Protein backbone atom coordinates (compact mmCIF):
# COMPACT_ATOMS: atom_id res chain seq x y z
CA UNK A 1 0.00 0.00 0.00
CA UNK A 2 1.62 3.20 -1.09
CA UNK A 3 2.11 5.62 1.75
CA UNK A 4 1.30 8.88 -0.01
CA UNK A 5 -2.00 7.81 -1.55
CA UNK A 6 -3.94 8.23 1.66
CA UNK A 7 -2.86 11.88 1.76
CA UNK A 8 -3.86 12.59 -1.83
CA UNK A 9 -7.53 13.35 -1.11
CA UNK A 10 -6.95 15.79 1.77
CA UNK A 11 -4.16 17.45 -0.20
CA UNK A 12 -6.47 18.03 -3.13
CA UNK A 13 -9.17 19.44 -0.88
CA UNK A 14 -6.88 21.80 1.02
CA UNK A 15 -4.37 22.81 -1.65
CA UNK A 16 -6.41 25.13 -3.92
CA UNK A 17 -7.69 27.31 -1.11
CA UNK A 18 -4.42 27.29 0.75
CA UNK A 19 -2.52 28.25 -2.38
CA UNK A 20 -4.76 31.29 -2.90
CA UNK A 21 -4.34 32.14 0.79
CA UNK A 22 -0.56 31.81 0.56
CA UNK A 23 -0.19 33.99 -2.53
CA UNK A 24 -2.63 36.77 -1.62
CA UNK A 25 -2.44 36.88 2.20
CA UNK A 26 0.64 35.09 3.59
CA UNK A 27 3.08 36.35 0.98
CA UNK A 28 1.94 39.99 1.41
CA UNK A 29 2.31 39.53 5.17
CA UNK A 30 5.96 38.60 4.77
CA UNK A 31 6.38 41.23 2.08
CA UNK A 32 5.13 43.95 4.47
CA UNK A 33 7.91 43.17 6.92
CA UNK A 34 10.47 43.10 4.12
CA UNK A 35 9.30 46.37 2.54
CA UNK A 36 9.47 48.12 5.89
CA UNK A 37 13.26 47.83 6.00
CA UNK A 38 13.70 49.28 2.51
CA UNK A 39 13.39 52.68 0.99
CA UNK A 40 10.88 50.99 -1.26
CA UNK A 41 10.43 52.33 -4.79
CA UNK A 42 7.23 51.37 -6.55
CA UNK A 43 8.27 52.89 -9.90
CA UNK A 44 9.44 50.30 -12.42
CA UNK A 45 13.21 50.21 -12.80
CA UNK A 46 13.95 52.27 -9.69
CA UNK A 47 16.18 50.58 -7.14
CA UNK A 48 14.97 50.08 -3.59
CA UNK A 49 17.74 50.41 -1.06
CA UNK A 50 18.04 48.54 2.21
CA UNK A 51 17.85 51.03 5.07
CA UNK A 52 17.47 48.74 8.08
CA UNK A 53 15.36 50.12 10.89
CA UNK A 54 15.32 53.69 9.59
CA UNK A 55 11.58 53.60 8.87
CA UNK A 56 10.89 52.35 12.38
CA UNK A 57 13.11 54.98 13.99
CA UNK A 58 11.32 57.61 11.95
CA UNK A 59 7.97 56.24 13.11
CA UNK A 60 8.89 56.46 16.77
CA UNK A 61 9.83 60.12 16.50
CA UNK A 62 7.06 61.04 14.06
CA UNK A 63 4.81 63.44 15.96
CA UNK A 64 1.99 63.11 13.50
CA UNK A 65 1.98 59.32 13.92
CA UNK A 66 1.61 59.83 17.68
CA UNK A 67 -1.23 62.26 17.07
CA UNK A 68 -2.91 59.68 14.81
CA UNK A 69 -2.40 57.00 17.42
CA UNK A 70 -3.93 59.24 20.09
CA UNK A 71 -6.98 59.75 17.86
CA UNK A 72 -7.26 55.98 17.41
CA UNK A 73 -7.02 55.67 21.19
CA UNK A 74 -9.70 58.29 21.74
CA UNK A 75 -11.89 56.49 19.22
CA UNK A 76 -11.45 53.20 21.10
CA UNK A 77 -12.09 54.82 24.47
CA UNK A 78 -15.32 56.47 23.37
CA UNK A 79 -16.72 53.70 21.18
CA UNK A 80 -15.82 50.39 22.86
CA UNK A 81 -17.37 50.86 26.35
CA UNK A 82 -20.62 52.41 25.01
CA UNK A 83 -21.03 49.62 22.46
CA UNK A 84 -20.62 47.00 25.18
CA UNK A 85 -22.85 48.73 27.72
CA UNK A 86 -25.60 49.68 25.28
CA UNK A 87 -25.40 46.39 23.35
CA UNK A 88 -25.71 44.43 26.59
CA UNK A 89 -28.46 46.72 27.85
CA UNK A 90 -30.56 46.28 24.74
CA UNK A 91 -29.90 42.52 24.81
CA UNK A 92 -31.14 42.34 28.41
CA UNK A 93 -34.30 44.21 27.46
CA UNK A 94 -34.81 41.94 24.46
CA UNK A 95 -34.06 38.57 26.02
CA UNK A 96 -37.64 37.90 26.99
CA UNK A 97 -39.20 36.62 23.79
CA UNK A 98 -42.23 38.60 22.75
CA UNK A 99 -43.95 39.47 19.46
CA UNK A 100 -41.99 42.73 19.35
CA UNK A 101 -38.60 41.07 19.86
CA UNK A 102 -37.73 40.20 16.23
CA UNK A 103 -38.91 43.64 15.12
CA UNK A 104 -36.62 45.48 17.54
CA UNK A 105 -33.75 43.14 16.77
CA UNK A 106 -33.96 44.01 13.07
CA UNK A 107 -34.11 47.76 13.74
CA UNK A 108 -31.06 47.72 15.99
CA UNK A 109 -29.12 45.51 13.61
CA UNK A 110 -29.89 47.53 10.48
CA UNK A 111 -26.90 49.89 10.81
CA UNK A 112 -24.56 46.89 11.12
CA UNK A 113 -25.45 45.53 7.69
CA UNK A 114 -25.39 48.93 5.99
CA UNK A 115 -22.16 49.77 4.25
CA UNK A 116 -19.64 52.00 6.04
CA UNK A 117 -19.49 54.42 3.15
CA UNK A 118 -23.24 54.99 3.16
CA UNK A 119 -23.59 55.51 6.92
CA UNK A 120 -20.48 57.70 6.97
CA UNK A 121 -21.90 60.04 4.35
CA UNK A 122 -25.19 59.95 6.19
CA UNK A 123 -23.54 61.12 9.43
CA UNK A 124 -21.57 63.73 7.56
CA UNK A 125 -24.89 65.06 6.32
CA UNK A 126 -26.54 64.89 9.77
CA UNK A 127 -23.61 66.74 11.36
CA UNK A 128 -23.42 69.38 8.61
CA UNK A 129 -23.48 73.03 9.70
CA UNK A 130 -27.11 73.33 8.61
CA UNK A 131 -27.83 69.68 9.36
CA UNK A 132 -30.31 67.77 11.47
CA UNK A 133 -28.14 67.38 14.60
CA UNK A 134 -27.58 71.11 15.03
CA UNK A 135 -31.28 71.70 14.45
CA UNK A 136 -32.48 69.05 16.92
CA UNK A 137 -30.02 70.08 19.61
CA UNK A 138 -30.50 73.78 18.95
CA UNK A 139 -26.77 74.25 18.35
CA UNK A 140 -24.73 76.15 15.81
CA UNK A 141 -21.63 74.01 15.95
CA UNK A 142 -19.44 73.64 12.90
CA UNK A 143 -18.60 70.03 13.75
CA UNK A 144 -15.97 69.39 11.10
CA UNK A 145 -13.98 72.58 11.53
CA UNK A 146 -12.27 71.47 14.73
CA UNK A 147 -10.49 68.31 15.84
CA UNK A 148 -12.53 67.35 18.90
CA UNK A 149 -15.97 68.14 17.55
CA UNK A 150 -15.13 66.16 14.41
CA UNK A 151 -14.06 63.26 16.63
CA UNK A 152 -17.47 63.46 18.34
CA UNK A 153 -19.18 62.86 14.99
CA UNK A 154 -16.79 60.02 14.11
CA UNK A 155 -17.29 58.33 17.49
CA UNK A 156 -21.06 58.80 17.42
CA UNK A 157 -21.12 56.97 14.10
CA UNK A 158 -18.95 54.16 15.49
CA UNK A 159 -21.27 53.58 18.45
CA UNK A 160 -24.49 53.89 16.44
CA UNK A 161 -23.26 51.43 13.81
CA UNK A 162 -21.86 48.93 16.29
CA UNK A 163 -24.54 48.52 18.98
CA UNK A 164 -26.51 45.98 16.92
CA UNK A 165 -23.51 43.68 16.57
CA UNK A 166 -22.72 43.39 20.27
CA UNK A 167 -26.46 43.22 21.01
CA UNK A 168 -26.87 40.20 18.73
CA UNK A 169 -23.96 38.38 20.35
CA UNK A 170 -25.12 39.19 23.88
CA UNK A 171 -28.65 37.98 23.11
CA UNK A 172 -27.23 34.60 22.14
CA UNK A 173 -25.00 34.51 25.22
CA UNK A 174 -27.84 35.39 27.57
CA UNK A 175 -29.79 32.40 26.30
CA UNK A 176 -26.99 30.26 27.69
CA UNK A 177 -27.31 31.60 31.24
CA UNK A 178 -28.78 28.75 33.29
CA UNK A 179 -32.28 29.65 34.44
CA UNK A 180 -31.94 27.42 37.49
CA UNK A 181 -29.14 29.62 38.83
CA UNK A 182 -31.20 32.77 38.38
CA UNK A 183 -34.16 31.13 40.13
CA UNK A 184 -31.97 29.93 42.97
CA UNK A 185 -30.58 33.42 43.45
CA UNK A 186 -34.11 34.80 43.46
CA UNK A 187 -35.15 32.38 46.17
CA UNK A 188 -32.10 33.42 48.17
CA UNK A 189 -33.49 36.94 48.07
CA UNK A 190 -31.15 38.52 45.50
CA UNK A 191 -32.63 41.57 43.78
CA UNK A 192 -32.45 41.89 39.96
CA UNK A 193 -29.26 43.97 40.11
CA UNK A 194 -27.52 41.43 42.39
CA UNK A 195 -28.66 38.60 40.14
CA UNK A 196 -27.26 40.46 37.14
CA UNK A 197 -23.91 41.07 38.84
CA UNK A 198 -23.48 37.68 40.49
CA UNK A 199 -25.11 35.27 38.06
CA UNK A 200 -25.48 36.80 34.61
CA UNK A 201 -22.13 38.59 34.34
CA UNK A 202 -20.00 35.57 35.37
CA UNK A 203 -22.01 33.34 33.02
CA UNK A 204 -21.44 35.56 29.98
CA UNK A 205 -17.89 36.55 30.93
CA UNK A 206 -16.24 34.75 27.97
CA UNK A 207 -18.60 36.59 25.63
CA UNK A 208 -17.77 39.94 27.20
CA UNK A 209 -14.10 39.11 26.67
CA UNK A 210 -14.69 38.17 23.04
CA UNK A 211 -16.74 41.30 22.29
CA UNK A 212 -14.20 43.58 24.00
CA UNK A 213 -11.25 42.12 22.13
CA UNK A 214 -13.03 42.28 18.77
CA UNK A 215 -14.15 45.87 19.35
CA UNK A 216 -10.67 47.00 20.41
CA UNK A 217 -9.21 45.44 17.26
CA UNK A 218 -11.97 47.07 15.22
CA UNK A 219 -11.34 50.42 16.92
CA UNK A 220 -7.65 50.36 16.04
CA UNK A 221 -8.62 49.58 12.46
CA UNK A 222 -11.01 52.44 11.94
CA UNK A 223 -10.40 53.81 8.46
CA UNK A 224 -13.37 54.21 6.13
CA UNK A 225 -15.43 56.42 8.42
CA UNK A 226 -12.57 58.86 9.04
CA UNK A 227 -11.44 58.86 5.43
CA UNK A 228 -14.90 59.50 4.02
CA UNK A 229 -16.15 61.82 6.77
CA UNK A 230 -13.31 64.26 7.42
CA UNK A 231 -10.54 63.04 5.11
CA UNK A 232 -8.37 63.83 8.17
CA UNK A 233 -9.34 67.52 8.05
CA UNK A 234 -8.87 70.02 9.52
CA UNK A 235 -5.17 69.91 8.71
CA UNK A 236 -4.67 66.21 9.39
CA UNK A 237 -5.82 66.66 13.00
CA UNK A 238 -8.43 63.86 12.79
CA UNK A 239 -5.98 61.39 11.29
CA UNK A 240 -6.10 57.89 12.75
CA UNK A 241 -3.22 55.46 12.28
CA UNK A 242 -4.60 53.85 9.15
CA UNK A 243 -5.59 57.06 7.36
CA UNK A 244 -2.09 58.38 8.02
CA UNK A 245 -0.53 55.16 6.79
CA UNK A 246 -2.73 55.26 3.69
CA UNK A 247 -1.75 58.83 2.84
CA UNK A 248 1.96 58.28 3.41
CA UNK A 249 1.79 55.25 1.12
CA UNK A 250 -0.49 56.16 -1.72
CA UNK A 251 -0.19 59.94 -1.78
CA UNK A 252 3.47 60.38 -0.93
CA UNK A 253 4.37 56.95 -2.37
CA UNK A 254 6.46 56.08 0.68
CA UNK A 255 5.67 52.37 0.60
CA UNK A 256 8.43 51.42 3.01
CA UNK A 257 7.26 53.84 5.69
CA UNK A 258 3.62 52.84 5.16
CA UNK A 259 4.61 49.18 5.65
CA UNK A 260 6.51 50.00 8.83
CA UNK A 261 3.42 51.72 10.27
CA UNK A 262 1.27 48.71 9.29
CA UNK A 263 3.71 46.31 10.96
CA UNK A 264 3.80 48.40 14.13
CA UNK A 265 0.01 48.58 14.26
CA UNK A 266 -0.25 44.81 13.78
CA UNK A 267 2.14 44.26 16.68
CA UNK A 268 0.07 46.66 18.79
CA UNK A 269 -3.12 44.73 17.90
CA UNK A 270 -1.49 41.44 18.92
CA UNK A 271 -0.09 42.88 22.15
CA UNK A 272 -3.40 44.46 23.19
CA UNK A 273 -5.28 41.24 22.41
CA UNK A 274 -2.83 39.19 24.47
CA UNK A 275 -3.05 41.61 27.42
CA UNK A 276 -6.85 41.54 27.32
CA UNK A 277 -6.95 37.74 27.09
CA UNK A 278 -4.76 37.53 30.16
CA UNK A 279 -6.87 40.10 32.01
CA UNK A 280 -10.16 38.36 31.26
CA UNK A 281 -8.73 34.97 32.20
CA UNK A 282 -7.41 36.25 35.54
CA UNK A 283 -10.69 37.97 36.34
CA UNK A 284 -12.60 34.79 35.55
CA UNK A 285 -10.54 32.66 37.93
CA UNK A 286 -10.20 35.30 40.64
Amino acid at each position, binding site marked *: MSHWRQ*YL*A*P*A*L*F*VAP*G*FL*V*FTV*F*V*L*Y*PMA*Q*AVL*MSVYDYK*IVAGAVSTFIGLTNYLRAVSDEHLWLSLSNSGVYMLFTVPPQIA*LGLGVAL*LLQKSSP*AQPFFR*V*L*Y*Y*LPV*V*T*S*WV*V*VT*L*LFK*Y*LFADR*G*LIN*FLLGLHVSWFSERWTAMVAICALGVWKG*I*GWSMMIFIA*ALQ*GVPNSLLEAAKIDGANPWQRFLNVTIPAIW*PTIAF*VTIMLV*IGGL*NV*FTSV*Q*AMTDSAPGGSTDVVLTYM*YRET*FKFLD*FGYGSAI*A*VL*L*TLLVFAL*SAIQLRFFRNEATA
Partner: protein
Amino acid sequence: MTRRFSPAEALRLTTLAVGALVMITPFLYMVSTSFKAQQYVLKVPPQFIPDPATLSNYERVLVRGDFVQYFLNSAMVAVTATAISVLLSAMMAYGFARYRFPGREWLFRILLLGLMIPALMLIVPQFVLAKWLGLIDTLWGLIVFYVAGNLALNTFLLRGFFEALPQELDDAMQIDGATDWRRFIGLALPLARPALATAAIFTFLATWDEYAWALTAITSPQNKTLPIAIALLQGPKGTQWGLVFAASIVAILPVIAVFLIFQRHFVQGLTAGAVKG
Protein backbone atom coordinates in the same frame (compact mmCIF):
# COMPACT_ATOMS: atom_id res chain seq x y z
CA MET B 1 -59.01 40.60 24.67
CA THR B 2 -56.93 43.29 26.22
CA ARG B 3 -53.34 42.86 27.21
CA ARG B 4 -52.23 44.59 30.34
CA PHE B 5 -48.76 45.93 30.67
CA SER B 6 -47.12 46.10 34.04
CA PRO B 7 -45.18 49.33 34.73
CA ALA B 8 -41.90 47.47 34.28
CA GLU B 9 -43.06 46.11 30.94
CA ALA B 10 -44.17 49.57 29.81
CA LEU B 11 -40.79 51.02 30.79
CA ARG B 12 -39.00 48.23 28.94
CA LEU B 13 -40.94 48.81 25.74
CA THR B 14 -40.61 52.59 25.94
CA THR B 15 -36.84 52.35 26.36
CA LEU B 16 -36.59 49.96 23.44
CA ALA B 17 -38.77 52.20 21.29
CA VAL B 18 -36.72 55.33 22.04
CA GLY B 19 -33.55 53.43 21.19
CA ALA B 20 -35.07 52.10 18.01
CA LEU B 21 -36.08 55.62 17.04
CA VAL B 22 -32.45 56.76 17.38
CA MET B 23 -31.34 53.83 15.21
CA ILE B 24 -33.93 54.32 12.50
CA THR B 25 -34.29 58.12 12.22
CA PRO B 26 -31.08 58.60 10.21
CA PHE B 27 -32.35 56.05 7.67
CA LEU B 28 -35.76 57.71 7.39
CA TYR B 29 -34.15 61.11 6.99
CA MET B 30 -31.89 59.68 4.29
CA VAL B 31 -34.91 58.37 2.39
CA SER B 32 -36.58 61.76 2.76
CA THR B 33 -33.54 63.64 1.44
CA SER B 34 -33.24 61.33 -1.56
CA PHE B 35 -36.52 62.86 -2.77
CA LYS B 36 -35.37 66.47 -2.31
CA ALA B 37 -33.99 68.86 -4.88
CA GLN B 38 -30.55 70.30 -4.11
CA GLN B 39 -31.84 73.66 -2.84
CA TYR B 40 -33.86 71.90 -0.11
CA VAL B 41 -31.32 69.40 1.28
CA LEU B 42 -29.79 71.72 3.89
CA LYS B 43 -32.77 73.95 4.48
CA VAL B 44 -33.35 75.21 8.05
CA PRO B 45 -35.67 74.09 9.53
CA PRO B 46 -35.13 70.71 7.89
CA GLN B 47 -37.93 69.09 5.91
CA PHE B 48 -38.91 65.62 7.07
CA ILE B 49 -41.51 65.27 4.34
CA PRO B 50 -39.96 66.59 1.14
CA ASP B 51 -41.98 69.46 -0.29
CA PRO B 52 -41.88 69.55 -3.22
CA ALA B 53 -40.82 65.91 -3.66
CA THR B 54 -38.84 65.02 -6.75
CA LEU B 55 -37.78 61.83 -8.44
CA SER B 56 -34.93 63.54 -10.24
CA ASN B 57 -32.22 62.00 -8.02
CA TYR B 58 -33.43 58.48 -8.72
CA GLU B 59 -33.80 59.36 -12.37
CA ARG B 60 -30.19 60.48 -12.46
CA VAL B 61 -29.07 57.26 -10.68
CA LEU B 62 -31.18 54.74 -12.56
CA VAL B 63 -31.58 56.22 -16.01
CA ARG B 64 -28.23 57.76 -16.78
CA GLY B 65 -26.02 54.79 -17.42
CA ASP B 66 -23.02 55.09 -15.13
CA PHE B 67 -24.66 53.98 -11.88
CA VAL B 68 -26.22 50.99 -13.56
CA GLN B 69 -22.68 50.07 -14.60
CA TYR B 70 -21.38 50.45 -11.01
CA PHE B 71 -24.26 48.36 -9.72
CA LEU B 72 -23.47 45.60 -12.22
CA ASN B 73 -19.76 45.79 -11.33
CA SER B 74 -20.56 45.42 -7.63
CA ALA B 75 -22.94 42.55 -8.30
CA MET B 76 -20.46 40.74 -10.55
CA VAL B 77 -17.60 41.13 -8.10
CA ALA B 78 -19.61 40.21 -5.00
CA VAL B 79 -21.36 37.18 -6.53
CA THR B 80 -18.21 35.76 -8.13
CA ALA B 81 -16.02 36.33 -5.09
CA THR B 82 -18.64 34.81 -2.79
CA ALA B 83 -19.08 31.70 -4.95
CA ILE B 84 -15.35 31.05 -5.30
CA SER B 85 -14.53 31.83 -1.69
CA VAL B 86 -17.28 29.62 -0.27
CA LEU B 87 -16.36 26.72 -2.58
CA LEU B 88 -12.64 26.89 -1.75
CA SER B 89 -13.39 27.30 1.96
CA ALA B 90 -15.79 24.38 1.97
CA MET B 91 -13.17 22.17 0.32
CA MET B 92 -10.52 23.23 2.83
CA ALA B 93 -12.87 22.85 5.77
CA TYR B 94 -13.83 19.37 4.60
CA GLY B 95 -10.17 18.43 4.20
CA PHE B 96 -9.38 19.65 7.71
CA ALA B 97 -12.47 18.07 9.26
CA ARG B 98 -12.51 14.63 7.62
CA TYR B 99 -8.89 13.62 7.14
CA ARG B 100 -5.83 13.22 9.32
CA PHE B 101 -2.58 14.25 7.75
CA PRO B 102 0.75 15.52 9.02
CA GLY B 103 0.82 19.27 9.64
CA ARG B 104 -2.95 19.55 9.66
CA GLU B 105 -3.21 21.59 12.83
CA TRP B 106 -0.28 23.77 11.81
CA LEU B 107 -1.85 24.64 8.48
CA PHE B 108 -5.11 25.43 10.22
CA ARG B 109 -3.35 27.65 12.74
CA ILE B 110 -1.59 29.55 9.98
CA LEU B 111 -4.99 30.06 8.37
CA LEU B 112 -6.33 31.47 11.62
CA LEU B 113 -3.55 34.03 11.50
CA GLY B 114 -5.49 35.45 8.58
CA LEU B 115 -8.40 36.06 10.94
CA MET B 116 -6.29 38.22 13.21
CA ILE B 117 -4.62 40.36 10.57
CA PRO B 118 -7.02 43.08 9.52
CA ALA B 119 -7.43 43.67 5.80
CA LEU B 120 -5.98 47.17 5.79
CA MET B 121 -2.64 46.10 7.26
CA LEU B 122 -1.92 44.21 4.06
CA ILE B 123 -3.10 46.82 1.62
CA VAL B 124 0.39 48.14 0.82
CA PRO B 125 2.06 44.82 -0.13
CA GLN B 126 -1.16 43.66 -1.78
CA PHE B 127 -1.08 46.71 -3.99
CA VAL B 128 2.50 45.92 -5.00
CA LEU B 129 1.55 42.31 -5.71
CA ALA B 130 -1.52 43.31 -7.73
CA LYS B 131 0.56 45.74 -9.76
CA TRP B 132 3.11 43.03 -10.46
CA LEU B 133 0.40 40.58 -11.55
CA GLY B 134 -1.33 43.16 -13.73
CA LEU B 135 -4.45 43.09 -11.57
CA ILE B 136 -4.66 46.82 -10.87
CA ASP B 137 -7.80 48.47 -12.25
CA THR B 138 -9.52 45.19 -13.12
CA LEU B 139 -12.58 43.61 -11.54
CA TRP B 140 -10.63 40.35 -11.24
CA GLY B 141 -8.11 42.24 -9.15
CA LEU B 142 -10.92 42.91 -6.70
CA ILE B 143 -12.27 39.37 -6.86
CA VAL B 144 -9.06 37.47 -6.08
CA PHE B 145 -8.26 39.61 -3.06
CA TYR B 146 -11.83 39.38 -1.78
CA VAL B 147 -11.74 35.59 -2.16
CA ALA B 148 -8.43 35.36 -0.30
CA GLY B 149 -9.54 37.79 2.38
CA ASN B 150 -12.64 35.77 3.28
CA LEU B 151 -11.08 32.27 3.17
CA ALA B 152 -9.97 32.13 6.80
CA LEU B 153 -13.28 33.07 8.40
CA ASN B 154 -15.32 30.81 6.11
CA THR B 155 -13.03 27.82 6.60
CA PHE B 156 -13.15 28.34 10.35
CA LEU B 157 -16.95 28.50 10.28
CA LEU B 158 -17.42 25.48 8.00
CA ARG B 159 -14.85 23.22 9.63
CA GLY B 160 -16.84 23.15 12.83
CA PHE B 161 -19.95 22.27 10.90
CA PHE B 162 -18.36 19.41 8.94
CA GLU B 163 -16.86 18.00 12.12
CA ALA B 164 -20.33 17.85 13.66
CA LEU B 165 -21.65 15.71 10.79
CA PRO B 166 -21.79 12.02 11.74
CA GLN B 167 -18.82 10.09 10.37
CA GLU B 168 -21.05 7.03 9.85
CA LEU B 169 -22.72 8.65 6.84
CA ASP B 170 -19.34 9.09 5.19
CA ASP B 171 -18.37 5.52 5.98
CA ALA B 172 -21.61 4.16 4.54
CA MET B 173 -21.03 5.97 1.28
CA GLN B 174 -17.43 4.85 1.19
CA ILE B 175 -18.57 1.22 1.40
CA ASP B 176 -20.87 1.94 -1.54
CA GLY B 177 -17.73 2.85 -3.45
CA ALA B 178 -18.25 6.60 -3.68
CA THR B 179 -15.06 8.57 -4.28
CA ASP B 180 -13.92 11.29 -1.89
CA TRP B 181 -15.10 13.97 -4.26
CA ARG B 182 -18.53 12.34 -4.69
CA ARG B 183 -18.95 12.15 -0.93
CA PHE B 184 -18.06 15.84 -0.64
CA ILE B 185 -20.42 16.99 -3.42
CA GLY B 186 -23.22 14.50 -2.87
CA LEU B 187 -23.27 14.23 0.90
CA ALA B 188 -21.32 16.85 2.81
CA LEU B 189 -22.29 19.94 0.81
CA PRO B 190 -26.06 19.33 0.82
CA LEU B 191 -25.99 18.61 4.56
CA ALA B 192 -23.97 21.76 5.19
CA ARG B 193 -26.44 24.01 3.38
CA PRO B 194 -27.28 26.17 6.43
CA ALA B 195 -23.62 26.76 7.23
CA LEU B 196 -22.85 27.43 3.56
CA ALA B 197 -25.68 29.98 3.50
CA THR B 198 -24.23 31.73 6.54
CA ALA B 199 -20.76 31.84 5.00
CA ALA B 200 -22.16 33.05 1.68
CA ILE B 201 -24.19 35.84 3.27
CA PHE B 202 -21.30 37.22 5.30
CA THR B 203 -18.95 37.05 2.34
CA PHE B 204 -21.48 38.72 0.05
CA LEU B 205 -22.05 41.59 2.48
CA ALA B 206 -18.33 42.09 3.10
CA THR B 207 -17.53 42.20 -0.62
CA TRP B 208 -20.56 44.28 -1.59
CA ASP B 209 -19.56 46.96 0.95
CA GLU B 210 -15.79 46.82 0.55
CA TYR B 211 -14.26 50.26 0.18
CA ALA B 212 -10.55 50.56 0.91
CA TRP B 213 -9.19 48.02 -1.58
CA ALA B 214 -11.54 49.11 -4.37
CA LEU B 215 -10.54 52.72 -3.75
CA THR B 216 -6.89 51.73 -4.04
CA ALA B 217 -7.01 49.28 -6.92
CA ILE B 218 -9.60 50.82 -9.25
CA THR B 219 -8.63 53.87 -11.28
CA SER B 220 -10.85 54.04 -14.36
CA PRO B 221 -14.50 55.14 -14.05
CA GLN B 222 -16.03 52.15 -15.81
CA ASN B 223 -14.54 49.73 -13.23
CA LYS B 224 -15.84 51.49 -10.15
CA THR B 225 -17.96 49.63 -7.62
CA LEU B 226 -20.85 51.25 -5.75
CA PRO B 227 -19.07 52.21 -2.50
CA ILE B 228 -16.33 54.18 -4.25
CA ALA B 229 -18.74 55.65 -6.80
CA ILE B 230 -20.93 56.92 -3.95
CA ALA B 231 -17.99 58.27 -1.95
CA LEU B 232 -16.75 60.12 -5.04
CA LEU B 233 -20.09 61.90 -5.43
CA GLN B 234 -18.87 64.30 -2.73
CA GLY B 235 -17.75 67.44 -4.46
CA PRO B 236 -15.13 69.84 -3.15
CA LYS B 237 -17.79 72.58 -3.39
CA GLY B 238 -21.02 71.29 -1.92
CA THR B 239 -22.19 67.70 -2.14
CA GLN B 240 -25.33 66.72 -4.05
CA TRP B 241 -26.89 65.08 -1.00
CA GLY B 242 -30.11 64.06 -2.71
CA LEU B 243 -28.12 62.25 -5.34
CA VAL B 244 -25.77 60.67 -2.77
CA PHE B 245 -28.67 59.19 -0.85
CA ALA B 246 -30.66 58.04 -3.88
CA ALA B 247 -27.54 56.12 -4.93
CA SER B 248 -27.00 54.90 -1.36
CA ILE B 249 -30.53 53.55 -1.12
CA VAL B 250 -30.16 51.72 -4.40
CA ALA B 251 -26.88 50.29 -3.06
CA ILE B 252 -28.22 49.14 0.32
CA LEU B 253 -31.52 47.67 -0.88
CA PRO B 254 -29.97 44.31 -1.91
CA VAL B 255 -28.17 44.14 1.43
CA ILE B 256 -31.30 44.82 3.45
CA ALA B 257 -33.22 42.28 1.37
CA VAL B 258 -30.55 39.64 1.99
CA PHE B 259 -30.56 40.48 5.68
CA LEU B 260 -34.34 40.32 6.09
CA ILE B 261 -34.66 37.05 4.17
CA PHE B 262 -31.77 35.25 5.86
CA GLN B 263 -31.99 36.75 9.36
CA ARG B 264 -31.63 33.52 11.26
CA HIS B 265 -28.38 32.72 9.46
CA PHE B 266 -26.93 35.94 10.86
CA VAL B 267 -27.55 34.86 14.39
CA GLN B 268 -26.05 31.43 13.68
CA GLY B 269 -23.01 32.88 11.98
CA LEU B 270 -22.32 35.40 14.71
CA THR B 271 -22.73 32.94 17.53
CA ALA B 272 -20.71 30.16 15.89
CA GLY B 273 -17.59 32.26 16.39
CA ALA B 274 -18.51 33.87 19.66
CA VAL B 275 -20.42 31.88 22.18
CA LYS B 276 -19.44 28.34 21.37
CA GLY B 277 -15.73 28.99 21.88
